[in-house]
């Protein structure tokens, strides 16, 4: 069953064509990792998946429903069933960690704060931060903030979780704790699309690698295949440039 389908997605920002016709399908339980050089359009593609950006051409289908930017309620429904984890965490700075995780349940699912906070606490436990429940984002480290952001996304019990370079803004020492959480989510069988530069993670966790360059999908393959023997010229160049650092 396809959780998400992208057909013929094109997007330009002004004169710059960022996506030149993307087709992509995401199956339930699949873990997709999108990699490629900067400027390839990876983040834009991810943001189109939950309609943070609207495509100039092309169709986005989520859980069998076509997402039309003019049908606002449909789009909001789709977003509430997808989780999005940002590179810069984007926690609500005026709320405690607990409230950050609970607020979606209250505002979008219509729950009461008490119930929502109870559930939120469970998810904070899941990411190992129940003791920071009443701290504000300014009191948390980058890694902790990102884990709270993941808990916030999880609390909505999404069918699909999108990760936009979740560790790129972190100190190297803090990357591990976030990747560990993501790995445990993968082990639970969640459907995830991750844009990342963490090749170690990609190799060990992904079901499928999607390699993008210059607004197009150049190659898609199982990670073992992709990293051992990339088929395309561009992918080979890319893997070659990073292979030393991966080992």
């Amino acid at each position, binding site marked *: 069953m396809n959780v998400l389908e992208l057909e013929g997605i094109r997007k330009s920002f002004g004169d710059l064509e960022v996506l030149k016709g993307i087709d992509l399908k995401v199956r339930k339980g699949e873990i997709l990792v999108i990699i490629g050089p900067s400027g390839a359009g990876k983040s834009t593609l991810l943001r189109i998946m939950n309609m943070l950006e609207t495509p100039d051409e092309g169709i986005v289908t989520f859980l069998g429903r076509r997402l039309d930017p003019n049908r606002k309620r449909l789009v*909001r429904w789709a977003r509430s069933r997808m989780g999005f984890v940002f590179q810069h965490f984007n926690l609500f700075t005026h709320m405690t960690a607990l409230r950050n995780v609970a607020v979606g349940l209250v505002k979008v699912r219509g729950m009461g704060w008490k119930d929502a906070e109870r559930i939120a606490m469970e998810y904070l436990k899941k990411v190992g931060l129940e003791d920071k429940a009443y701290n504000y984002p300014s009191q948390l480290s980058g890694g902790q903030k990102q884990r709270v952001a993941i808990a916030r996304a999880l609390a909505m019990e999404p069918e699909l979780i999108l990760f936009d370079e979740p560790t790129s803004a972190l100190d190297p020492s803090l990357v591990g704790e976030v990747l560990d959480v993501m790995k445990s989510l993968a082990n639970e069988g969640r459907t995830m699309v991750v844009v990342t530069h963490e090749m170690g993670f990609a190799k060990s966790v992904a079901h499928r690698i999607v390699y993008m360059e210059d607004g197009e999908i150049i190659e898609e393959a199982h990670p073992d295949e992709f990293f051992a023997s990339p088929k395309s010229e561009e992918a080979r160049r890319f893997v070659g440039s990073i292979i030393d650092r991966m080992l």
Partner: protein
Amino acid sequence: MSKILAAAGVVALVAAMYAAISKVYPFNWNLVVRYYILFMKGLLITLKVSAVSLVISFFLGLIFALFRRSHFEFLQDLGSIYVWFFRNTPLLVIILLTYYGIGTVFQMNRFWASVIALSLFEGAYMTEILRSGMEAVDKGEIEAARSLGMSEFQIFTTVIFPQAIRISLPPLIGQMVSLIKDSSLASVIALEELTMMGRQVGTRTLASFESYLIVAVLYVTITSIISFSGRIIERRLSLP
């Protein structure tokens, strides 16, 4: 320690000036202190006008700030025109326009004419303060709220407004102080607020210096209390 010295220095300076002036202008406090009830009445009216205008101007500011941030060009233009007109016209003129102009058509009394004039005028400044506050909220947080599936209204009430208010609080308090001071201009349409009372007592007793000094001290006291309270509220609301 240095603050106490500075305060003592100021007090000494004021005392010296007072002594010097007294030699040329004999202060006659008795004449004026007798009218303390009038000063209190005036102060009450000043506070009333300011309080009502504050509330109305805040809502005007909120509405027009939202207009200026709206996707509809028409609302944007409306907001811009409002701010442009009232920030470029002197308050005195607006008061006269409201009372003698529109006020005659609608038979407005002095209090409401003053309130409307003051609210429209200060509302324009509130608009800009609130708008800046709203713009200052991190766009990333707005995207996160969107990604959770919140509606634009929910995003405003949950993410934008609470933060915008915190950010805007210092300039808002400043605006409150301005409002109280600006309300003194209502004396030109004979509203019996504090400044008007000062003028009446001053002319009745011919001790205008003493009278206006008292009025000034009262204004400074009120605005200082407000600024001080504002700082306390800021501290309470600030996030760790």
